[in-house]
Each structure stands twice: as structure tokens, then as C-alpha cells.
């Protein structure tokens, strides 16, 4: 017999409640429970980073967090980055600098970048590459991803001083 527990979490600024099994991974709760399919599942081994979401502002692999462990935290998924129908500057930078091809890894890339840029608004390329260690891309290569994040940093710094 499987136990079901109720889970209260704040996702993209909204209080949500759902029923999960204790073994349910956060990524499955987001995708299957809340319909937030932007968190992708690209591997079985916690390596690919496609499921990256922000937990209280910090990038985590939602496939390596039990959904129940996220109770009381604020979760941000890729669906929560845009505001008022306008995509986030990091998202726009990925569009403008060809930071994606198939797009499967992109939500994770962008949320990892959001964590990085929140702490280091002007990271060196080496710092960007180090931060992307846990996000695998199998089509474009990483150069344009690095360029996108560099451009997003510049854009965010600019808007912060305006």
C-alpha cells in the first residue's frame, strides 16, 4: 500500500497544494502534479541538469530533491521567469545569442544562469563555464550559451543602474 501525503509549496509565487507519494521527486510533482513541464527530465542519474529549478533562489536539480523536502520553500520554474507576458532578460539573451538549438536543456541552463547572475552580476567566462558544469547540452555546444549568459549579465547590470 502506498502512502500519500499532502504537500504545500509556493511555485512561481503561487501557493499550491497537491498529493504526492513520499518517494515522489520534485520534478515529477512539478510536471505531473502541477503541469509545469518546463522542468525537463534528460537523464536518470542526476547529471544532465535539464530539470534545474530555483529553490529559494538557488539552482537545484529537481530530480534529486524529494517533493516533500521542498515544503515551505519557494520554487521557481522556467514558467515563472517571465513577468506580464514579457520574457526575462536571460531568456531574451538566449534567443538573441543563439543559446539554444533543440531547447531541451535550455530551462535548466537559464535557471542556473539566474542563480549565477544573482550572486555574480559580471562573471568571467571561466566562472560561467564553471557554473554550467552541471548542465549538459548535446546540440549547440557551450560557446553560445556562455555568450548568452554574458550578454544577460550586461543587460541585467544595465537595468539595475538605470
Amino acid at each position, binding site marked *: 500500500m*502506498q*502512502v500519500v*501525503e499532502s504537500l504545500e509549496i509556493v511555485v512561481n509565487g503561487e501557493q499550491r497544494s497537491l498529493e504526492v*507519494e*513520499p*518517494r*515522489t*521527486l520534485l520534478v*515529477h510533482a512539478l510536471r505531473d502534479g502541477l503541469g509545469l513541464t518546463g522542468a525537463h527530465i534528460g537523464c*536518470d*542519474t*542526476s547529471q544532465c*541538469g535539464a530539470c*534545474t529549478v530555483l*529553490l529559494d533562489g*538557488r*539552482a*537545484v*536539480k529537481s*530530480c*534529486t*530533491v*524529494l517533493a*516533500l*523536502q521542498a*515544503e515551505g520553500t519557494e520554487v521557481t520554474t522556467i514558467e515563472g521567469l517571465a513577468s506580464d507576458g514579457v520574457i526575462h532578460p536571460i531568456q531574451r539573451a538566449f534567443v538573441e545569442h543563439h543559446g539554444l538549438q533543440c531547447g531541451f536543456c535550455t530551462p535548466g541552463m537559464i535557471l*542556473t544562469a539566474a*542563480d*549565477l547572475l544573482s550572486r555574480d552580476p559580471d562573471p568571467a567566462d571561466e566562472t560561467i563555464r*564553471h*557554473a*554550467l*558544469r*552541471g*548542465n549538459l547540452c548535446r546540440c549547440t555546444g557551450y560557446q553560445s550559451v556562455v555568450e548568452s549568459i554574458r550578454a544577460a549579465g550586461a543587460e541585467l547590470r544595465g537595468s539595475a543602474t538605470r
Partner: protein
Amino acid sequence: MIPAPVRYARASNVEQALELLAEPDAKAIAGGQSLISVMKLRISRPSLVVDISRLELGGVEIRDGELHLGPLTTWDDLIGAAELRRPALAAIAECASGIGDLQVRNRGTLGGSLAHADPASDMPAVLLALGAALQLRSPQGERIVPLGDFLLGPFTTALVAQELITDVVVPLPAPGSGSAYVSVEHPASGFALAGAAALAGADGGGRVAVTGIGARPFLLGDDPDAALAQAEIFGDRFASADYRRELAAVVVRRARESAAERARDDS
């Protein structure tokens, strides 16, 4: 893959956590960066996970000549800790910044990694070189175990059932000391093929420990080169024992040089 069915309980204090851990197949979970991975592979199938991540066991503090690292301190916390920005303790943040990836460092904890005891985990080498001991707590009381006696073998520690790591204690090295960690990683897994941590004292003495090359991370003693030549070294399809021994000699030399350089900067 999805973990096997399990029950979940969140502990709000250490006593309660220990009580919950009385269940024979219960496992403590903190950041889950080791445990959830093995649960997904169903290598680990606990009946109950006891979530200890909300306990007040995190933080970095220096008091009475000792450094105290709370077991729930994440790798990211260690990287950011102002208390560790001194040559004698530089190896800790240096090592932490190379563990896993950003996401893992945001959640993975020091205590979780020590309890998991992967023979290729990085931080035990640093803590061995620094002479760390662990404070353990069970319903029977507290005990202090030197890290070298805690790490028994691959994924095997001195922890008994119903016991938690409650503190990691590092004696502050003498003024004028420096420490460093150097590793060569497997390019896919990121785990150390060979890693070495060194503490260099102002008097020219010091300690060296290695990881990734044996059944557990270990200290090399007073003559590191001779100890390495005689050590029982592990080989696999990625790196033979001979190759690991060569690699270990290189990282040991680099770690000692870097530690000595930091010691000079401090004096």
C-alpha cells in the same frame, strides 16, 4: 528512475531524529545529493527517510582555537564562509568549489558526504590533512571519533544505527600554516581519480592525505612518497592502480607546493 516506495518524516530536533532512526531500515536524509541518486537506482531502498535538513546543525564557526563545521553546512556555504579565508584553511573552500556542480553544491552537505563515505569523495582528504574529528550523537550519548577512525572502507563508516554526525571539529593550525587541495578528476563523473590535500606548517612540517586511490581516503604519514609507493591502490577500467599511483604522486607534490606557498604568504 523513481525510488522504491518509502515513508517520509521530517525531524524538528536531534532527539526526534534519533528516535525516528530506531526503525531498522531508516535512513537520514539532508541534501540528498548522494542518497537520492542511489535511491533512484534502487541500490538503496530505505523503509523510511528521516529528513534532518531543518535541524540547527549548519554553520561555520571558530571558537576556542577550533574550527567547527556544522554537518548540514552545504558546499556552497563553505565556499562563501569568511571564517575559512585564511591560508591555513584555504584547502576547504578550494576543495568545495570543485565538488559536483553548482546545483549539487547548493544542496549537498558536508555531513551527508562524510556519512556516505564514497572512497573518491574529495573533502575527507582535506579534513584528514587538517586533523579533523567528528562529534557523533546517539541515544547512548556523544562520542568524538577522529576522521581516520570514522572512515572504514567504501561506503562504510563507524556510524552505528541511530547515530548522527553533530559536529566536525578541526584544530586551528598554528599561525604561518597553509593548506591546499589538488585533484585530477574523471572527466565524466567528476570524482577524483587521485586527490591530495596538504597542510604545511611554518616549521616545515605538515600532513598529507589522499583520496580516490584506495578503499578510503587516508593519511600518508611522515614520508608521503614512501607511503604512496607502498600503499594499496585501487584500479578500475578508467585508471589502473599503477596510473593512479603515478597520478597521486603528482597531486601530492602539487598540493604540498601550493600549501607551502600559502604558508609563506601567511608569515
